[in-house]
């Protein structure tokens, strides 16, 4: 079976990988010069199916749990160190509501938080620890997928190449993210902005989420132990590549609140892009003739891509139907 995959972001890469593993001949097209250079490039890389339940439907948790296996066994680039949710004393109400909507956590007091992350000792009176969650460096993950695909004999990679659905193939997977809006008019962009800080004064082993009534922020340690991704804003706005002064102040202010030692960190990167999102903020597989669009992963690209890739492969190769994703 000859399958064309358009888009080498996290969705296209995992879909191509899954199809190739199942024996399909895959041609992957990407208009950018390499894998993972669209909005995947700015992702946080938290594989946190239980935390995300705080503002998402149960299906996000169900599909997200599958990603833990994928990123730690099938393509082992993630580490399971759990994630930690904290809030300043006055925002205790936000920790309580977070705990009401999530599961699989341990409640922590200040002492316990200090045991888990020594650099946060005595900074937060309450927290939640989700021990089964993982995190990864998104750019390592997309590079590893690109490399794995390049080594497979039944995969052809075409970077810097624009493509449209072609009759030459038995099936086309449209994995273009927000660029597919002309054919998927329900899509909207939800802007996310991030920055990367570099400092030797802070050590964190796992993602830290700090709750706030208006601007929750997370910090994810990168592969380089001195680099930390701080993200991410959520703005109903479709303008990619531009970070506002307000967002930057909020991200920096929150990083400083989590750990004051970030004040002397070097800002090594600022960036942002738009998350492709449907009105219900849930992912969707859209089948039209012999084209299947996988889109709407919103803020859950790395969390949901493995499960969606597996289902997309079932649709393409076995004619499967998934009503919860395809209605």
């Amino acid at each position, binding site marked *: 079976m000859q399958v064309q995959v358009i888009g080498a972001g996290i969705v296209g890469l995992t879909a191509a990988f899954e199809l190739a593993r199942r024996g399909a001949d895959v041609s992957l097209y990407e208009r950018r010069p390499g894998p993972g250079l669209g909005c995947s490039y700015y992702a946080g890389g938290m594989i946190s199916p239980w935390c995300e339940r705080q503002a998402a439907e149960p299906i996000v948790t169900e599909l997200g749990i599958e990603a833990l296996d994928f990123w730690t066994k099938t393509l082992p680039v993630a580490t399971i160190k759990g994630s930690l949710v904290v809030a300043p004393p006055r925002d205790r109400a936000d920790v309580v509501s977070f705990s009401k909507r999530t599961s699989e956590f341990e409640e922590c007091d200040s002492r316990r938080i200090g045991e888990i992350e020594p650099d946060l000792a005595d900074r937060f009176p309450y927290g939640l620890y989700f021990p089964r969650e993982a995190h990864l460096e998104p750019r390592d993950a997309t590079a590893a997928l690109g490399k794995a695909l390049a080594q497979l004999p039944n995969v052809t990679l075409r970077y810097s190449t624009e493509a449209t659905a072609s009759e030459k193939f038995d099936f086309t997977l449209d994995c273009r993210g927000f660029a597919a809006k002309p054919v998927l008019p329900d899509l909207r962009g939800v802007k996310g902005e991030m920055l990367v800080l570099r400092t030797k004064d802070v050590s964190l082993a796992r993602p830290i989420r700090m709750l706030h009534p208006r601007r929750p922020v997370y910090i994810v340690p990168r592969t380089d132990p001195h680099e930390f991704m701080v993200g991410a804003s959520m703005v109903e706005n479709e*303008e990619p590549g531009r970070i506002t002064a307000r967002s930057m102040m909020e991200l920096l202010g929150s990083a400083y609140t989590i750990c004051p030692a970030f004040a002397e960190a070097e800002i090594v990167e600022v960036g942002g892009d738009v998350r492709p999102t449907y*009105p219900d903020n849930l992912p969707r597989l859209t089948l039209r003739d012999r084209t299947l669009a996988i889109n709407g992963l919103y803020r859950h690209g790395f969390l949901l891509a493995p499960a969606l890739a597996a289902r997309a492969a079932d649709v393409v190769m076995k004619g499967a139907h998934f009503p919860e994703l395809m209605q």
Partner: protein
Amino acid sequence: MKDVARAPDDALEVYGTRLSSRLFVGTSMYDSPAILADAVRASACEVVTVSLRREAGGSRAGGSFWDLIKSMNVRVLPNTAGCKTVKEAVTTAQMAREVFDTPWIKLEVIGEDDTLQPDVFGLVEAARILSEDGFEVFPYTTEDLVVAEKLLGAGCKVLMPWGAPIGSGRGLNNVFGLKAMRAHFPDVPLVVDAGIGAPSHAAQALEMGYDAVLLNTAIAKAGDAVAMAHAFKLAVAAGREAWLATPMEPRDMAAPSTPVFGVAFR
């Protein structure tokens, strides 16, 4: 009969528009626009408020979300949330008028980052500029009577005092002040805006004679936003009916006023 002017069908009239729902709903912080749309339907509200300052970006890039709002078939009350200066608020209002094709503007000039309380000086100034420019201004203010008077002088025909700080969910912090405001301005539509956390708070505002309530977080951040939206619909209707029915006066049993002589029913 109340001394508050009211139509026979009990519609609320603001700037010449008659509304049968006395609940205004904010559109931020929902888990998704789909849930927002369901919540708006469940609340039976006729007015939603939408922020533009941050969403506009450099090129009015909030378009898709704004289109979703427009498709909900309710009246849009754009707001200037996030604006801290008169100039920002005026510019945002002008953009809102173009984007949503309405003279209505919920005017917020934020004076304090933490509590988000209004800068009432900037508010009065911005209200005057916008009213002179043809806007129909809904100012987010405090319960201060002097500020209220100045807002009316600046051209506002509706006042929206806070119940408590935005997003705090603490209900009506200063019941005395809000009652004084109602008594002071019997003919001005008054809307409690901000601080409502539970349907009982909304009912209380309506029972006190407030014409409507505006809220966002209490619905958006409830465990089940759609069910909570419906609960608010019921509470607002109950509060309004109670006000029209003239609640009884509470009796102070702590200070006996009748002679104990000859009390039969001990």
